[in-house]
C-alpha cells in the first residue's frame, strides 16, 4: 500500500473562489479572442472608409496643368523666377536627357548639351549625368531620385568634393529605357547642401507638372512632354523651340491617343510670361472627334519673348461610381493627380507574375512533397538525409522573404553576372531594334538596326520607316545645309548629325538571358518564397490519406508511382488545392522580395513580354503610401493607397474563402 498523500500540505481554495477565477479567465479569453475579430473589422473599415473618395463622386472637372517657361532670347525673365535650388530643367533629347543646373549665385545656367564632360553612365536602372566645364569645376549632376548624397556620387566618380557644389541645385529627369517612348521615368529631386529639399517636377506619369526650361546660348532646345488626362486622352509628343532668323518658333508634333468616349479635350495655351496674358490659345480638340481622325497634328506658334506655356486638360464627363471603379482598375498610375490615378498596369503585373509563379511552384512543390512522403528510403543514412531535407524546408519557410528577393536579384535577374548585363544580355531572341529620330519637319521616324548598341550612320538611301512602319525615303542633308522650303520634302528631311534614341520593339515571345528585372525573374523569386509553404501544405494533405488505402493499392501490385497517381493524388488533391490557393494568395500580397528585385519605379503599361518591367499591386501600394499627403482636393494618395489595398483585400479574401470552403467540404474522413 502506498502511503497516503500528506493532505496538510495542500492549500485548499474554496470552490467558489476557483470558479470565480475560472470565469474571470473565461471572460479574458473571450475578450482577447474577439480582439482579432475587432482588429480585422477595424482594418477593413478603415480601408473602405479611406477608399471611398476614390470611388465615390468627386469633382468631374479633372484638370491637369503644366507650365513651361521659355526665355529664348534673354534669359533674365526666367532667372527671376528661379531661386537657388530651383529646378532649371528641361531638355529631353531622344535617349538620354536633359540636365541643367543653376549655379550657386543664380548667374549661370549650365547645360550639358553645350559642355558635357562626363557621362552618361548607368548604375542599375538609372542613367546619371554629371557635367561642368571641367573636372575641377563641377557644376551639376543628375541623379535619378535625388536620394543619394552628393558626396557619395562624387566618390563613385573619383572626383573630389567641391564646396561650391554643395550649394548648387541638382536636377534630375531620366528615362531608363530610352527612345522616344519612355518606358519609365523617375521622379526628380533637387539636392541642396547634401539634402533633398523637395521633389520637383513630377514627370513620372507622362505628365510634366512643372517643367521649367531656360534656353540660352543654344540654337534650339527641344522639349518633349506628354500629357495624359485620365490616362488616355492625348499625348503631346514633342515640341521644339527653334531660333531661325532671329525669330523663335515653337513647333509641336502631337500624337493623340484618343480612347475615351467622353467629352474631354486638351487645351493648350501659350501665356506670356511677363504680363501673364494669354498669347494664344489653340489646339482645342475633342477626343470624340479624334476617333478615326488622322493621328498626327501639327501646330506652330511664333515666340517673341518669354513665355509661360500652360496646358490643361479637363474631363467633363459625369462619371458614376461604376465608371470610377472601372477607371481605377484600368488606368495608369498618376503621381501628380490622385483623382485620376489608377492601378491598371500593377493589376496586370500581379496577374502575370502570380500565374507564372503558380505554374512553376505547384509542380515543384507537389513533386517534392510526394517524394518526401511516398518515396521514403529504407536505408538509415538516406532516411537521415531525408529528415535533413525536411528540416531544411521547414527552415526555408522561416527565411524572411526579403532574403529571397536578394537571391532572386542575383540568381535570376543578373544571373551572377556570367551572361552579361541586363542591358547587354549574352543571349536575346525575338526583339527588333530601331533608332528613332525626329526629322527637321518634326516627324518621328525609325531606322532599323541589327546591333542595338551602335546607332546607324545617317546616309542617303538608308532604310527608314515612319511611326506606322511604312517605308519612307529620307532626305539626308549635312549639319549646316539650308533646309528645303518644300513642306513635303521637309517632312522627311534629316540632318546627318542628328541624334537618335534606341527604340526596341519586343513581341510577346521576346526572351533574354539573363532575365533582367522583369516578369519572369519576379515570378521565379516569388516561387522561391511560396515553395516551402506549398511543400508543407501538400505534405499535410498526403499525410491525411489513410495508410490503409496506400497498403491496399500496394497489395494489388501497384508500383509506388501507380499508388501515388491512382490513390494518393485523387485523395489528397483537395487538401493540396487548399494549400496551393493559400500560398498563391501569399504570393499576390508579397511585396518585399519584389521591391528588391523590381525596384519601386513608375510603370505606365501592363507587361508585354516575359522580360518586361513590371509593377505589382503591393509595390504600387507601397509607392502610394510613401507619397506626400496633400490637404487640397477631395482625393489624396492615401485614399488611392486604400483603394488599391481594398482591391488586393477583395482578391485575397475571395481566395481565402474558396480555400476555406474547399477545406470544409473535403474534410471528410477517408478511412
Amino acid at each position: 500500500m502506498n502511503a497516503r498523500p500528506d493532505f496538510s500540505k495542500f492549500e485548499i481554495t474554496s470552490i467558489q473562489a476557483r470558479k470565480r477565477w475560472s470565469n474571470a479567465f473565461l471572460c479574458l479569453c473571450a475578450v482577447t479572442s474577439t480582439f482579432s475579430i475587432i482588429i480585422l473589422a477595424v482594418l477593413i473599415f478603415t480601408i473602405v472608409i479611406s477608399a471611398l473618395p476614390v470611388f465615390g463622386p468627386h469633382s468631374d472637372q479633372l484638370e491637369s496643368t503644366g507650365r513651361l517657361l521659355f526665355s529664348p532670347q534673354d534669359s533674365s525673365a526666367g532667372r527671376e523666377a528661379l531661386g537657388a535650388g530651383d529646378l532649371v530643367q528641361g531638355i529631353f533629347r531622344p535617349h538620354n536627357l536633359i540636365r541643367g543646373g543653376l549655379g550657386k549665385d543664380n548667374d549661370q545656367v549650365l547645360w550639358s548639351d553645350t559642355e558635357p564632360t562626363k557621362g552618361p553612365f548607368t548604375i542599375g536602372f538609372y542613367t546619371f549625368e554629371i557635367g561642368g566645364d571641367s573636372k575641377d569645376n563641377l557644376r551639376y549632376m543628375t541623379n535619378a531620385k535625388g536620394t543619394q548624397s552628393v558626396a557619395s556620387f562624387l566618390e563613385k566618380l573619383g572626383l573630389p568634393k567641391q564646396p561650391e557644389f554643395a550649394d548648387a541645385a541638382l536636377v534630375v529627369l531620366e528615362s531608363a529605357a530610352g527612345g522616344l517612348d519612355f518606358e519609365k521615368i523617375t521622379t526628380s529631386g533637387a539636392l541642396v547642401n547634401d539634402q533633398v529639399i523637395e521633389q520637383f517636377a513630377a514627370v513620372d506619369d507622362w505628365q510634366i507638372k512643372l517643367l521649367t526650361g531656360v534656353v540660352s546660348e543654344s540654337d534650339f532646345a527641344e522639349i518633349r512632354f506628354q500629357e495624359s488626362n485620365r490616362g488616355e486622352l492625348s499625348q503631346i509628343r514633342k515640341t521644339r523651340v527653334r531660333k531661325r532668323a532671329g525669330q523663335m518658333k515653337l513647333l509641336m508634333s502631337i500624337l493623340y491617343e484618343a480612347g475615351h468616349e467622353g467629352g474631354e479635350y486638351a487645351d493648350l495655351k501659350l501665356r506670356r510670361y511677363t504680363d501673364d496674358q494669354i498669347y494664344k490659345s489653340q489646339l482645342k480638340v475633342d477626343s470624340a472627334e479624334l476617333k478615326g481622325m488622322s493621328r498626327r497634328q501639327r501646330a506652330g506658334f511664333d515666340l517673341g519673348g518669354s513665355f509661360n506655356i500652360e496646358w490643361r486638360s479637363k474631363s467633363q464627363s459625369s462619371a458614376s461610381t461604376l465608371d470610377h471603379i472601372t477607371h481605377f482598375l484600368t488606368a495608369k498610375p498618376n503621381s501628380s493627380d490622385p483623382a485620376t490615378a489608377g492601378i491598371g498596369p500593377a493589376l496586370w503585373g500581379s496577374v502575370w507574375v502570380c500565374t507564372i509563379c503558380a505554374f512553376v511552384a505547384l509542380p515543384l512543390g507537389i513533386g517534392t512533397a510526394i517524394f518526401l512522403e511516398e518515396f521514403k528510403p529504407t536505408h538509415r543514412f538516406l532516411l537521415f538525409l531525408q529528415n535533413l531535407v525536411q528540416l531544411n524546408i521547414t527552415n526555408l519557410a522561416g527565411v524572411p522573404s526579403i532574403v529571397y528577393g536578394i537571391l532572386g536579384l542575383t540568381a535570376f535577374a543578373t544571373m551572377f553576372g556570367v551572361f552579361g548585363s541586363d542591358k547587354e544580355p549574352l543571349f536575346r531572341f525575338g526583339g527588333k531594334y530601331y533608332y528613332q529620330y525626329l526629322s527637321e519637319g518634326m516627324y518621328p521616324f525609325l531606322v532599323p538596326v541589327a546591333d542595338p548598341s551602335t546607332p546607324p550612320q545617317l546616309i542617303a538611301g538608308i532604310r527608314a520607316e515612319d511611326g506606322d512602319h511604312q517605308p519612307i525615303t529620307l532626305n539626308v542633308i549635312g549639319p549646316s545645309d539650308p533646309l528645303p522650303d518644300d513642306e513635303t520634302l521637309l517632312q522627311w528631311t534629316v540632318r546627318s548629325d542628328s541624334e537618335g534614341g534606341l527604340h526596341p520593339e519586343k513581341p510577346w515571345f521576346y526572351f533574354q538571358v539573363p532575365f533582367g528585372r522583369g516578369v519572369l525573374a519576379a515570378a521565379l523569386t516569388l516561387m522561391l518564397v511560396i515553395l516551402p509553404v506549398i511543400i508543407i501544405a501538400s505534405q499535410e494533405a498526403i499525410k491525411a490519406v489513410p495508410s490503409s488505402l496506400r497498403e491496399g493499392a500496394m497489395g494489388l501490385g501497384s508500383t509506388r508511382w501507380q499508388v501515388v497517381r491512382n490513390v494518393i493524388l485523387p485523395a489528397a488533391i483537395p487538401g493540396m488545392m487548399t494549400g496551393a490557393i493559400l500560398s498563391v494568395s501569399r504570393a499576390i500580397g508579397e511585396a518585399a522580395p519584389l521591391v528588391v528585385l523590381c525596384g519601386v519605379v513608375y510603370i505606365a503599361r501592363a507587361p508585354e513580354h516575359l522580360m518586361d518591367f513590371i509593377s505589382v499591386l503591393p509595390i504600387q501600394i507601397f509607392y502610394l503610401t510613401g507619397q506626400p499627403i496633400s490637404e487640397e482636393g477631395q482625393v489624396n494618395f492615401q485614399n488611392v493607397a486604400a483603394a488599391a489595398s481594398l482591391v488586393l483585400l477583395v482578391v485575397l479574401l475571395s481566395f481565402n474563402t474558396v480555400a476555406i470552403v474547399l477545406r470544409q467540404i473535403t474534410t471528410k474522413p477517408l478511412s
Partner: protein
Amino acid sequence: MSVSETIQQPAALTNRKLKPLRWVRARESVIKSGLLSATLFSILVTVSIVGLLFRETVRFFQFDRVTVSDFLTGTTWSPTLGAGGQFGIWPLICGTLLIAGIAMLVALPLGLITAIFLSEYAPRKLRNVLKPVLEVLAGVPTVVYGFFALTFITPFLQSTFGIQLEYFNALSAGIAVGILCIPTVSSLSEDALQAVPRRLREAAYGLGCTKFDVATKVVVPAALSGIISAFLLAIARAVGETMIVSIAAGATPRLTLDPCIEIQTMTGYITNTAKGDVSNFGIEYFSIYAVAFTLFIMTLGVTLIGNLIRLKFQEAYE
C-alpha cells in the same frame, strides 16, 4: 440493396492495360529521379542563399572603409555619408529588436490566450468563426498592415492615449507587426495544446479541477515546448518582417529604445537601399548583403531552435 444486382468487376480490372515490367520500372525510375530533383531544388535554394550572402558579404568587408570589428561593434550606421560613412550594424539590430519586442508584447499574450480559448473553451460555432478570421488576419498583405499602422494606429494612439508620436515611429509599426504575428502564435500554440493527450485533462478533472486549473496548470505546462517553439517562430517572423517597417517605422537608423520616434530595421534598410538607385558595385550595394546575412543568421537561428523544439516535442506524445 437488391439481390438481383449482379456484381460487376471493378473498373480497375476491366480497364487494366498490362505493360511490360521493364517499361514500368523504367518509368518508375524516371519519375523518381524527377521528384528527387524537385526535392534537391530546395537544398539548392538554401545552399545558394548561404553561398551568395556569404560571398557578397566577404566582398563587402574587402572595402577599405569597413572592417568586421567595426561592423559588429559599431554604433553608427550612416552608409550614405560618403567617405565619412560608418557601418556599425547595432543601430539596425536595435531597431529590429525594438520592433520585434513591441510585436511580441502584443502577439504573445493575445496569441496564447486566443489559443487557449480556441483549444479549451470555445464552443464549436465560435471556433468556426474565429479560425477563419485568424487565417484571414494572417493572409492580409503586409503592405496593407503598413498602411493601417500609418493611417489608423498612429492617429489612434495619439488621440486616445495622448502619446507623442512622430509620423513614422516604432510603436505603431511594432503593434502592426504584432497583429500580424497573432495568428502565427495562436495557430501553432493551439496545435501544441491540442496535442496534449485527453487523459491528462480527464485526470485533472477527476481531481476536481476547474477548466481554468486544467488549462493553466495541466495543459499549458504539458504543451510548453510547443508554445515556446511557436513563440520563437513568431519572433523570427517579426524580425524578418519588411513592408510594415518600411512603410511605418521610418528610415533613420538609431541606437535607441524609445518607441515613439523614427527608427530603421535591417529589413527596412535593405528595402530602402534596394528600391532606389544604388550602384551595382558601390559599398552600399554590398552593405545590403552584409545586413541580409546578419538578418538571415538571426532568423535562421531562431527558426532552427523553434523547429527543433517542435520536432522533439512532437515525438514526446507519440
